[in-house]
């Protein structure tokens, strides 16, 4: 970025921060930088610690535990499924190697520079009415 394209007037931000508001007038661009600085700093943005009663804390902990258990089971289920898929790929290729060696060579040829189609989208709650455009112009 060139210095000529900087939009605000370049005024030195020389200001001693004091506890109370001073009457010294600050240019709007300086004020903006001060605002950005205070937005970045962490002071006064930390929310208060939630004070929970013992009963509420136990409730919360049991909900969190149940959620973690659910997540863990989901992860292990997905992992097991992937392992099974992998094992079946290995078995199928081994089978092909024994029965059809020519087809095996063809099947085991590495494909290079393959990409997923751009139409593959991350699913949303509200997909477009025409989710797949069939005649894409490239």
């Amino acid at each position, binding site marked *: *970025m*060139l*210095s000529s394209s*900087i*939009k*605000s007037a*370049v005024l*030195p*931000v020389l200001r001693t921060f004091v506890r109370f508001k001073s009457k010294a007038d600050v240019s709007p661009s300086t004020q*903006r*930088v001060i*605002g*950005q*600085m205070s*937005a*970045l700093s*962490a002071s006064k943005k*930390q929310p208060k*610690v*939630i004070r*929970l009663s013992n009963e509420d*804390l136990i409730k*919360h902990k049991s909900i*969190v535990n149940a*959620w973690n258990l659910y997540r863990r089971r989901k992860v292990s289920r*997905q*992992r097991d499924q*992937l*392992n099974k*898929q*992998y094992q079946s*790929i*290995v078995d199928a*290729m*081994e089978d092909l*190697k024994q029965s059809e060696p020519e087809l*095996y060579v063809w099947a*085991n040829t*590495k*494909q*290079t*520079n*393959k*990409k*997923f189609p*751009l139409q*593959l*989208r*991350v*699913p*949303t709650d509200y997909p477009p009415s025409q989710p797949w455009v069939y005649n894409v112009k*490239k």
Partner: protein
Amino acid sequence: MQLARSFSTCARALRSGYSTVEPVHHLVKINKASLKPGMTQLLKSKSDITAIGFKPVEISQDRVREHYNNTVKSDLMLHFYEHDAKTVEGQKFREWGTDSPYKMYRSMKKPRGKGKATRNIKPITSKNVPELQSIVINLYAPAIAEHKWLSVSARAFIAQITNVKPQLLRNRSNVIGWKIRVGRPCGCKVELKDRDMHQFLTTLTELVLPRIRTFTGLKPTTGDTHGNISMGLTEEDVKYFPEVEHFQELFPNLFGFHITFKTTARTDEQARTLISSLGFPFQK
């Protein structure tokens, strides 16, 4: 019993209660100030609701994570599968040999090729399907060297679009021609992980990149040869981020930046295939 005074060390062994174990003092440095009871709050993890820094993380659905786990992961595993594949050994530091005594304690010979050790490339199984680890945003603007206060604007801008506080970068060398001095701020960087990363990714692929007219896709050769993909956005491009688009008076100075996608893929080709599954177009 009174022993005669002597220089012999045997006298010490006769004493009762003498330990043969040498006392250990200050082998491990302990910051005692951090052991006081007031500090125990800080030992709690941020997921603990009683902790001071408690931050609820799972507050919404993680669309990209679910898409990757449900759709992409098994497809990638199938695509990268190669029967009877062997591990491709990377370049390692080498021994000089044993035929001469002069080679015995000599430091190891540099790896072949570029002289840098590289990792082994293992065949893809269900255990090591490539996935996106993190997104690193690196902003360097020469204008910051001239006007120091612009570093605040740059950091506020990156914090606004990523929801993570960026780290200030400072120059590490003196270049008189570019008016660069050591220690002066010159930009900022941030590493996005997990949910922040996925949020940034969807914003980029769904809202920003489709609106950039000059964008034709990532370069088909992009990559650092170890499975990390990079792209760049100019200051004209970044104005399409919805977080700054509607607050132009708050962010009058925008900056371009580099984006690096760090993946667990070991080759660029694998990484490119992975990135294409997350909605990034590639040039032909």
